[in-house]
């Protein structure tokens, strides 16, 4: 610790001491820097343990039992790996995982491509670019409940604007454009809404990346007579890549948990076409009250997301170090 920071700590300790009873003041004065640091950090650690770590450990314990939250008086039996075996052999859960993977893949792809393109355009600083930036950001600021209901009306085949617009372009009768009722269209209906809502978020992160590239690099490239295309692929993309990857990470984790939008738009239907993992988990935990099995499923999901995110972060670090 250097002198200035040490004196700052002392000053802060004095100020705290002055506001406390004498006995506490004496005790505080006697504390080491490390002990004071612990005093400040402890509440956060306790909160973290209570809110995150304890429930996680509790869920791991429950995942080995037949516990049902709606039958607290029933005997709780240890079922070993039975819940995990059942989860991993359940075709419905595998279908939900596939559906989730489908959503995550397409939403990330579309949001990254469109988000980066928008950021690239906005970065040109044309006249009124601030206005357009604000306009693009609006969907992201809305509540998912509002967005879900809003788009449900837009998708309405008889009165919805979406069906009307598609009908105008393609000539297909509006009654046949059943975005939420068709097995083939319903997943895309959700992908479209999620992309509409969250592309601005990706755009913001990409914009930060683009603005972090120093102008002199482009000036040097100009001197070397590099074409605009060459500058884009050799300067813009590589230097913005860590930011793009960060956006992909955030959106990937978020979309893996996608729940509200699907519930509002299709409720998991038609059939189970849009039933993502979070909906299956919610149904098992809070509708069927199969708490033990739902805990096992949650742990499987946690391990999957944690493992994938870990691999991804390592890749991200490698890109940053280049």
């Amino acid at each position: 610790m250097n002198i200035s920071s040490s004196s700052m700590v002392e000053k802060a300790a004095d100020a705290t001491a002055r506001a406390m009873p004498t006995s506490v003041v004496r005790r505080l004065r006697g504390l080491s820097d490390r002990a004071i640091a612990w005093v400040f950090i402890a509440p956060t650690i306790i909160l973290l343990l209570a809110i995150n770590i304890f429930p996680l450990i509790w869920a791991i314990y429950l995942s080995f039992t037949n516990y049902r939250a709606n039958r607290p008086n029933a005997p709780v039996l240890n079922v070993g790996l039975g819940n995990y075996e059942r989860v991993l052999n359940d075709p419905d859960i595998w279908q939900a995982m596939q559906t989730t993977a489908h959503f995550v893949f397409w939403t990330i792809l579309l949001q990254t491509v469109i988000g980066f393109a928008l950021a690239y355009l906005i970065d040109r600083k044309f006249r009124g670019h601030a206005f357009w930036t604000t306009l693009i950001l609006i969907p992201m600021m809305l509540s998912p409940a509002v967005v879900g209901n809003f788009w449900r009306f837009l998708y309405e085949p008889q009165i919805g604007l979406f069906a009307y617009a598609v009908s105008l372009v393609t000539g297909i009768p509006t009654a046949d454009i059943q975005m939420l009722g068709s097995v083939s269209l319903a997943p895309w209906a959700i992908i479209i809404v999620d992309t509409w809502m969250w592309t601005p978020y990706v755009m913001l992160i990409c914009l930060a990346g683009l603005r972090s590239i120093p102008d002199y690099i482009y000036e040097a490239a100009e001197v070397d007579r590099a074409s605009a295309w060459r500058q884009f692929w050799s300067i813009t993309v590589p230097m913005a890549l860590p930011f793009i990857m960060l956006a992909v990470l955030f959106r990937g984790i978020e979309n893996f948990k996608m729940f509200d939008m699907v519930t509002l738009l299709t409720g998991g239907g038609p059939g189970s076409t849009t039933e993502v993992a979070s909906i299956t988990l919610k149904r098992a935990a809070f509708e069927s009250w199969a708490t033990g099995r739902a805990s096992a499923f949650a742990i499987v999901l946690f391990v999957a997301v944690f493992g994938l995110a870990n691999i991804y972060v390592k890749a991200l670090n490698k890109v940053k170090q280049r």
Partner: protein
Amino acid sequence: MQKKSKALLGLASAFVMSSALPNLAKADQLTLCWAAWDPANALVELSKDFTAKTGTEMKFEFVPWTSYADRFLNELNSHGKLCDLIIGDSQWIGGSAENGHYVKLNDFFDKEGIKMDDFVPATVVGYSEWPKNTPNYWALPAMGDVVGWTYRKDWFERPELQKEFKEKYGRELAAPKTYDELKQIAEFFQKREIDGKTVYGASIYTERGSEGITMGVTNVLYDWGFQYDNPEKPYEMQGFVNSADAVKGLEFYKSLYDCCTPPGSSNVYMVESADAFKSGQVAMQMNFAFTWPGLYKDEKVGGDRIGFFPNPAEKKHFAQLGGQGISVVSYSDKKDAALQYIKWFAQPEVQAKWWQLGGYSCLKSVVNAPDFASSQPYAQAFLDSMAIVKDFWAEPSYATLLQDMQKRVHNYVVAGNGTAQEALDGLVKDWTEVFEDDGKI
């Protein structure tokens, strides 16, 4: 100094008074939990009489239907004290009785002279008893409800349509008595131009998220001979849930969905169905009877324009039971006051007023009164419907059983995956697993 003491004393008294007053008010207050819908508003109106008579203030916690089960089952499972009284769905009875959420009412009924024989038998079985068909009562029948139909009487009465229909089908265009007749009428109206607007045959339940499509499908399957299990051997479902007749019933429901519903009907339940009818989109509408008073009052489709009919018959004649009983929550600190509310609610004159305000009384003295059938335009259809009710499983695991059925039938009817036979075979498999987990088979 004396002044200061007095001022302090005054402040202290004011503090004690201010903190005591809410407690006094709280002791005289009961909270009743239910779904947010028209009958709940009628109950608020009705309960003013209870407050006037007893001085007990009534507080209401009403939750939209979409989160009704989630919200209140969570409350009960966590032994919450929010609700002193709850009007819980009929399927909750098994779980609530076995898990100790509701106060058993037998002794109270005996003491107060409340007789279950005074209520419509189907509502006692549906809303009060667990195990079913045993004299163990956990609720007082509160709101009778059943799936029935409304139709556009004004369209049906148009001479040109009557003529055309008779030429095509050889019978009058009137409220259908069988499902085959219903489908013919639905096909007749499908995509027809009426008053310059394209209209459709019928609105039926297809909702995926909660219980919608199950309530609609069972309503039809019962009439084809579907049974939950072997009447001789409980929980034996093979050949009953997936009987050849049940398969035909499910195929019929899908054919009705495919041929005769408005575009975008893939997630329809009570509100959406009522909206389709109110906006003049459909000739007929499947919906619970609680919607009827509101629809009758509707300026555009109500009055002389609307007709009501009970569920049509096919091989058999049943209708899906809705409705709820009122129970005292065992975690309440005010159980005695809550029981007093039930005692008051069970009185014949209160039940009569309940019906007048828009609630559906289950008391025989109300529904069997000579003027009941003519008391409202929908009263006869309600009476006829309540005479043929059948309910979904009321087992403690009903929610899992319901989810399984939602998934299987939605997959077939709306998503068009597989066959009806496969859907019902899959349902037998799912339900068998649930009862095996419960140790019932």
